[in-house]
């Protein structure tokens, strides 16, 4: 019996029809399912519940075909209502002018650019998971990559809005692009703000392509399922109210168009995998370049607090930090709201992401510390003052001169949320508890917003001459525009959960035990498993006798 000449059982298993026998119970005090196994010789299973391939398809397609559940409509209603505030606020801003924000002569960038950097940072986790973790062969990424990529796109959508509306005369926004106009005015190519336009639009394009390309096989699955149901149900197929179109007809049409003629042929898969690897390779530098260029917006200037050489990698680490926090904020409730998702996103997945939060939290902590140290070490009076008297010094610690930092609360919120709160993940039970992870992810999201606020506003509100000092106070339009952008983000994500596959089905099936042709049920492994591997490399032929001899 081998994969080349399969007997009936093997054939059924390879086709994903066969359920595996009960897996051995792993000694795992918390979950009993092996997902948190401590044994270093054992890799935790990535799909729980002894699933077949068919189960995975049914679970993922089920959310789309049967709907996510009764909670969805109210949630969508709420989110889209909040999203509509964005429209109102942007409309009000355009009609009235940027004066409706709290900006002033000193602080001419505040919530607008804070929100831009905040959202664009969140948009980094998706591409990191799908590109960098793919190159690093981290197989646990397969069950979180689709949702994270979707989130990336939506975050970039929210981010893209803010630079567009902050320029004052919004109808001139097209001048951001290098289009020669009738006045022969070109954008300033040596300005990082222009590079931002290129960086963000490239990133949005490639992320969108990556996301879409990954979904093509899943679209084809949805198309085929709809078509099969249509054939089976004939005239009894359910129809949409009012218009009277059969739902599955519509699905077959739309998903069919989106699947670009995908037929699951091995030639298609071959091309697909090559394209995937290439896009992963192209996206990897993009993950770093986008936020590096965003950091250039600040770091190329000569404003104390902005000009520091560590900004590019520090911004990238912060983006990954904030992005993973948002992935967790979305996926932890999803595990509860979508039945069956807990088998695909295990506690191990959450624990891994908690560890990434801890690691990247330390990276931004390192950058905070290094900035502070060099501000002192550089012995530049302005730089030192920005750190101590614009950011750090709370009023109750002020010296005899009574000098304190008016934005100390923002700085310390940032430190508490970004550096201190992830420290609970040193404790194993904490990083394995979805509730704790959710709370920390929430704090990190707040902290990362404050980080951008601290960088932008505290550096600007006191220029070199004390006559140019002044505070920034957010207006209600500032606040509601940001709230609205959160609503927009959530609305788009909810639409994604309703209409698009939330998991990359083929990739998940690839990391299931059945995908290994030498796998013959738990307790039987051994035949040919390591043998095939040893024989193949050409270096280790000692095992060859056990390898399948059949040719192809």
């Amino acid at each position: 019996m081998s994969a080349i000449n399969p007997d009936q059982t093997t054939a059924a298993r390879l086709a994903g029809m066969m359920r595996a026998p009960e897996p051995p119970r792993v000694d795992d005090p918390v979950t009993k399912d092996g997902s948190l196994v401590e044994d270093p010789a054992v890799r935790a299973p990535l799909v729980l519940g002894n699933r077949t391939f068919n189960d995975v398809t049914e679970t993922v397609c089920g959310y789309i075909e049967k709907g996510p559940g009764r909670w969805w409509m109210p949630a969508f209603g709420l989110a889209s209502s909040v999203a509509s505030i964005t429209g109102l606020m942007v409309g009000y801003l355009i009609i009235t002018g940027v004066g409706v924000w709290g900006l002033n002569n000193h602080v001419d960038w505040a919530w607008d650019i804070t929100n831009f950097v905040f959202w664009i940072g969140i948009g980094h986790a998706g591409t990191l998971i799908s590109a960098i973790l793919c190159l690093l062969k981290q197989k646990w990424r397969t069950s979180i990559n689709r949702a994270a990529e979707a989130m990336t796109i939506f975050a970039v959508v929210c981010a893209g809005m803010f630079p567009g509306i902050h320029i004052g005369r919004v109808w001139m926004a097209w001048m951001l692009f290098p289009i020669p106009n009738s006045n022969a005015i070109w954008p300033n190519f040596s300005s990082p703000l222009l590079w931002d336009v290129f960086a963000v639009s490239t990133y949005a394009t490639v992320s969108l392509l990556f996301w879409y390309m990954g979904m093509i096989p899943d679209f084809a699955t949805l198309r085929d399922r709809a078509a099969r149901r249509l054939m089976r149900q004939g005239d009894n197929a359910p129809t949409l109210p009012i218009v009277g179109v059969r739902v599955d007809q519509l699905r077959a049409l739309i998903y069919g168009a989106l699947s670009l003629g995908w037929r699951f042929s091995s030639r298609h898969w071959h091309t697909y995998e090559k394209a995937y690897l290439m896009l992963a390779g192209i996206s990897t530098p993009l993950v770093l370049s986008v936020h590096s260029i965003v950091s250039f917006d600040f770091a190329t200037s000569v404003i104390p607090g902005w000009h520091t050489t560590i900004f590019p990698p520090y911004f990238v680490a912060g983006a990954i930090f904030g992005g993973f926090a948002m992935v967790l904020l979305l996926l932890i409730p999803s595990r509860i709201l979508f039945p069956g998702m807990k088998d695909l996103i295990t506690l191990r997945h959450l624990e891994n992401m908690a560890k990434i939060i801890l690691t990247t939290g330390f990276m931004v902590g390192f950058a905070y510390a290094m900035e502070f140290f060099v501000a002192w070490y550089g012995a530049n009076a302005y730089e030192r003052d920005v750190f101590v008297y614009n950011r750090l010094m709370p009023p109750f610690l002020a010296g005899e001169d009574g000098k304190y930092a008016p934005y100390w609360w923002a700085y310390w919120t940032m430190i508490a949320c970004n550096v201190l709160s992830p420290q609970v993940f040193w404790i194993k039970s904490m990083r394995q508890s979805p509730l704790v992870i959710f709370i920390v992810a929430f704090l990190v999201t707040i902290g990362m917003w404050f980080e951008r606020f601290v960088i932008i506003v505290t550096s600007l509100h006191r220029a070199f001459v004390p006559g140019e000092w002044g505070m920034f106070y957010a207006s209600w339009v500032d606040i509601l525009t940001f709230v609205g952008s959160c609503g927009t983000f959530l609305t788009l994500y909810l639409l994604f959960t309703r209409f698009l596959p939330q998991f990359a089905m083929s990739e998940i099936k690839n990391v299931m035990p059945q995908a290994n042709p030498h796998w013959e049920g738990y307790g039987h492994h051994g035949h040919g498993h390591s043998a095939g591997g040893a024989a193949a490399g050409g270096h280790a032929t000692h095992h060859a006798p056990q390898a399948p001899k059949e040719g192809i």
Partner: protein
Amino acid sequence: MSQLTSHMSDSQSGDHAAAHAHGVDPALLRHENTHLPAGWGKGLMGLLGVAGVACLGLTAAYPFVAGGEGEKAAKAAKHAMASYHVGFITALGIMLGALAFVLIMHLVKAGWSVTIRRQAENLASLMPLGVIFALPIVFFGGKLFKWFDPALAKTDTLLQAKSAFLNPTAFYARLVVYFVVWCYLAFRLRGYSLTQDKTGEKSLSNKASWTSAWGILAFALVTAFAGVDLLKTLDFHWFSTMFGVYFFAGCMLSAIAVLALLMVLIRSSGKLEGLFTQEHSHDLGKLMLAFMVFWAYVAFSQYFLIWYANIPEETAWVLQRGGGSLTNAWTPVFWILCIGHFLAPFPLLIIRKSKQSFTLISLFAVWLLVMQIVDFFWIVRPMVYPDKYIAPNDVVTISETTLGLTWVDFTGALGPVFILLAAAIWKMSRVPLIPLKDPRLPEAATHKNYV
């Protein structure tokens, strides 16, 4: 057929089948495949050792050979010291990068790299050699670090502002802390690994993971500050927040290059057959490529931000190193770095074959190691030539400045590196070449890139 069968024998799919894999083929783990015979490599070790000691001797002799009196003699001594500093930093960087490799691999519970990890452990555990290499700074540091001079602190306002950090006592105290942390981590992790060779206790892997978790934190802080202390304070007026990361990037790259060389050396002596294959070489090559790109990213970001903001207190350092529009003798070195350290090897190393072939990866390793030495040379040596401080408005041309390149630059830079390599070869034959009973060894032994 082999492609097909191996494609299907996915060994690391994160499933139970992999989890219960039957360990490694005992034939691969037979004694003669995993151990070097006692006394192996004596010739190579002797050659490197003698060359290293000779280089160091010549470097020490340089001030006397160069002769001269007064200022000229002082400059010769400074030259010798700076050249030696390049070698010291390179050797230290290789050990630090190897330690980081061990820490990272334990931290992420990597399977593929188990068969490489022992050599990294060996390299890192040579850290006491770093202490010995650091001794000349204790005796002659003042020749290199201007701020050692207490008289200067009376006149230099910047130094006065920084004197809490920049004074010899604090400097030595910090060096002690750095070496204690590095030695402790290196010995502890290697100790776990060697104990596991004997007992096979699986929990040691978890202990190593835990040590690496807090260890990498301590390592990052200490290493970044070591970069500041040993390199950045050479020009104590200058500052850059990126510098610690820049130093780390160079350390990682040179360590991976040396690891690749050592692994190919072992394979060429017929050992580790089936345990270090072209698949491992491929992945090591990918890491080499990744850290080369990372170095370029960090170096570019640092340079670019300084260039764009154009603040004299920052640009002075770059101008002195020929990185500005004002060219000087260092301009060619600056371009050699841009091209040789990144632009030229990048399109070549991205080709799969360059990483899979033992010959090619060795060539790239040697090349990048040399480039890393040039990088440290570019940072350290302008403190000697050109000696004068180049202000942004000074008009300095190549003809007016000189690198002052002589044989001592080669002996000083290569001496410590040769000795380190000799010591690494000495370590190699004293312990098993791989962690014999590592629970993740089966994954490494069946590691494939195309599954």
